[in-house]
């Protein structure tokens, strides 16, 4: 099908003595111009188009994960406009309890003493008189909102999101993300404190001290760990490691941040190891030779030349490890106990951001505030990992390149 597109080479005059005519090699505008071939053109365009799919996916993830969080902010903005037209609250309340069975307990909860406020509750003067905490609760209880949706999404304020109680399924749901954030940070810290030193030292051994044959064994062996599905690591942590560590350390809660953190470290070690090892191997041979020539021993060269030279790469590796732990869901779900506590004790249960999404998303009502808040958590995770990746990619790699090319910055 492409035969016609094969250009015949310019014919040489067949003379007994090969005389090269200068004119054969004159590239005129005509010979240089690329012939437009439809199949070529189309295939190139299609391939380029498909290649942009990955960019499109990233953009789509941004758009769609954020889209579902928008109602939170919209409802906060709506309140101002809605508050001026809260005319028929009683009637609305009736509608609400009829249409939204699954939300009923929240509305019946509102029958209590706050009822007299309904008529004028929206008065801005009165609103200003109350503390914002009260306002938030009242708003949520009275279910004042746009009338298009039969039941009002219970309200979330920015302050509510930074509250210290995460109780999404209760009469008065609270969406304070502080315990989740604290839990995630705790797990990440514990995980990285275990993973980073182990992985970096192991990488140093593999890159600097091990003979080649041993290296060929160590690398694939550690990469086996990367192939373990996280649910397997989580299962191991839940069934075996948790019990073992409890016996060794004797704490009371079997599933806690410590167990979860160590299990997370297992997931992060291969990432950190592989990147660090690659970077250390890429440290120019001349550096090491110079160090050895100056009389430094092998271990001194490894620790004082190879390791510092690879620092930006190690930094990137640790960042990516942090990103991995931060977003890891299954291990967090299975091995951390999933209690949203705000404490810094590593031997207490924690609930991470990602585990919260994993555990609660299946049970929420679509379009509910709880649902939106879970998407908000997702957006936070996404932004965080995206930034970490961007940082590792552009800043660190750039530095590393410059350093290896001899320009110490």
């Amino acid at each position: 099908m492409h035969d016609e597109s094969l250009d015949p080479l310019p014919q040489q005059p067949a003379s007994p003595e090969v005389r090269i005519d200068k004119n054969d090699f004159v590239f005129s505008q005509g010979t240089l111009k690329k012939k437009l071939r439809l199949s070529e053109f189309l295939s190139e365009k299609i391939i380029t188009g498909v290649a942009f799919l990955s960019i499109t996916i990233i953009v789509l993830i941004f758009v769609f994960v954020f889209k579902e969080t928008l109602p939170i902010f919209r409802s906060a903005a709506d309140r101002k406009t809605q508050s001026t037209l809260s005319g028929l609250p009683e009637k609305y309340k009736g509608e609400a309890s009829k249409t939204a069975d699954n939300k009923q307990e929240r509305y019946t909860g509102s029958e209590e003493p706050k009822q007299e406020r309904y008529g004028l509750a929206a008065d801005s003067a009165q609103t200003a008189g109350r503390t914002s905490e009260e306002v938030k609760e009242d708003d949520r209880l009275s279910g004042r909102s746009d009338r298009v949706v039969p039941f009002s999404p219970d309200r979330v304020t920015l302050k509510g999101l930074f509250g210290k109680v995460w109780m999404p399924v209760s009469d008065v749901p609270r969406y304070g993300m502080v315990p989740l954030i604290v839990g995630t940070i705790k797990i990440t810290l514990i995980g990285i404190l275990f993973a980073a030193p182990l992985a970096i030292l192991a990488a140093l051994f593999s890159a600097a001290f091990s003979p080649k044959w041993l290296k060929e064994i160590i690398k694939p062996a550690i990469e086996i760990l990367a192939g373990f599905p996280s649910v397997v690591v989580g299962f191991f942590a839940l069934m075996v490691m948790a019990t073992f560590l409890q016996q060794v350390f004797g704490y009371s809660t079997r599933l806690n941040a410590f167990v979860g953190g160590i299990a997370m470290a297992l997931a992060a070690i291969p990432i950190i190891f592989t990147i660090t090892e690659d970077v250390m191997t890429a440290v120019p041979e001349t550096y090491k030779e110079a160090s050895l020539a100056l009389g430094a021993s092998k271990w001194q060269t490894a620790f004082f030349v190879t390791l510092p030279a690879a620092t930006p790469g190690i930094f990137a590796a640790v960042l990516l490890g942090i990103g991995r732990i931060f977003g890891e869901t299954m291990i967090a779900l299975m091995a951390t106990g999933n209690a949203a506590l705000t404490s810094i004790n590593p031997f207490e249960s924690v609930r991470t951001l990602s585990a919260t999404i994993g555990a609660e998303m299946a049970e929420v009502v679509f379009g509910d505030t709880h649902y939106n808040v879970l998407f908000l958590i997702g957006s936070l995770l996404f932004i965080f990992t995206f930034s970490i990746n961007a940082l590792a990619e552009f800043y660190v790699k750039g530095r590393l390149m410059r350093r290896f090319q001899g320009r110490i910055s």
Partner: protein
Amino acid sequence: MKKLNRLTGGIMVGATAFSVVLIIAIIIVILIVIIVGGKHQMSWKFLSTFPEDGMTKGGIFPALFGTALMVIIMSVAAVPFGTITAIYLTEYAKANSILAKMVGFAVKTLAMVPSIIFGLFGLGFFIKFVGNGMDHVFLGGQLKWAQPNILWASMTMALLTLPVVIVSVEESMKAVPRELREASLALGATKWQTILKVVLPGARSGILTGTILAISLGAGEVAPILFTGAAYYLATLPTSVSDQFMSLGYHIYIMSTQSTNVDQTLPIQFATTLVLLMLTFILNFTAVIIRARLRRAH
């Protein structure tokens, strides 16, 4: 002084060696514990029968079947798109163009996005946007596609595994010697012909490796399918792409955290974990071997 120096050196080297030993020991312990815990339950019957008595007895056939079906649909989506992206990156993209860099960065980012985010995206995009749209356009609002099913779970997983395919294919395409391309072009073949007839056949093993690694990753991931299609228990196998499915990883998760009697079903859990682990292990091992042969060939 020299003695002290040597001592420090010994300790330092010892510490690095200890790290390696510790990591490998942990891997071995995990493998042994899961093999020992699951081997009694393992049998052909376990692999080929349905769960019984509220999943306290019986086998894991539907989970195996569901996982297999899911990774097949996933590969059908991920491998062509991944390969084409890799073709763009190696053949068409100019080395320092901003667009190529953007694609490269997007691929890396995609590889780093937490798997649970893919789950959210699958829910928000495939189920609520595409599914809802399909229901409105084709079925007049009847609920069929706007709910979790194996198709959406596979698509979500395809996005997750896309970078794996891209990286693997790209690597093998770069390994195709430049001379081969030049020879093809010099013979008068066009760029597209060269890619189709020279580069792609040369990169065959890379495409295979990418597919295997993607399957291994997809079979083990649970977070993306938590709310895009995996089911707690199904009495029948999925018959169409709009059915829900059972998956090995999800089965392990619910059996170990949400089952009514966790202790009683412990052997089943270990055995299921063993099956999943063996599956990913074999797949990864195959990929490593293919890749090693590829490296030796060049």
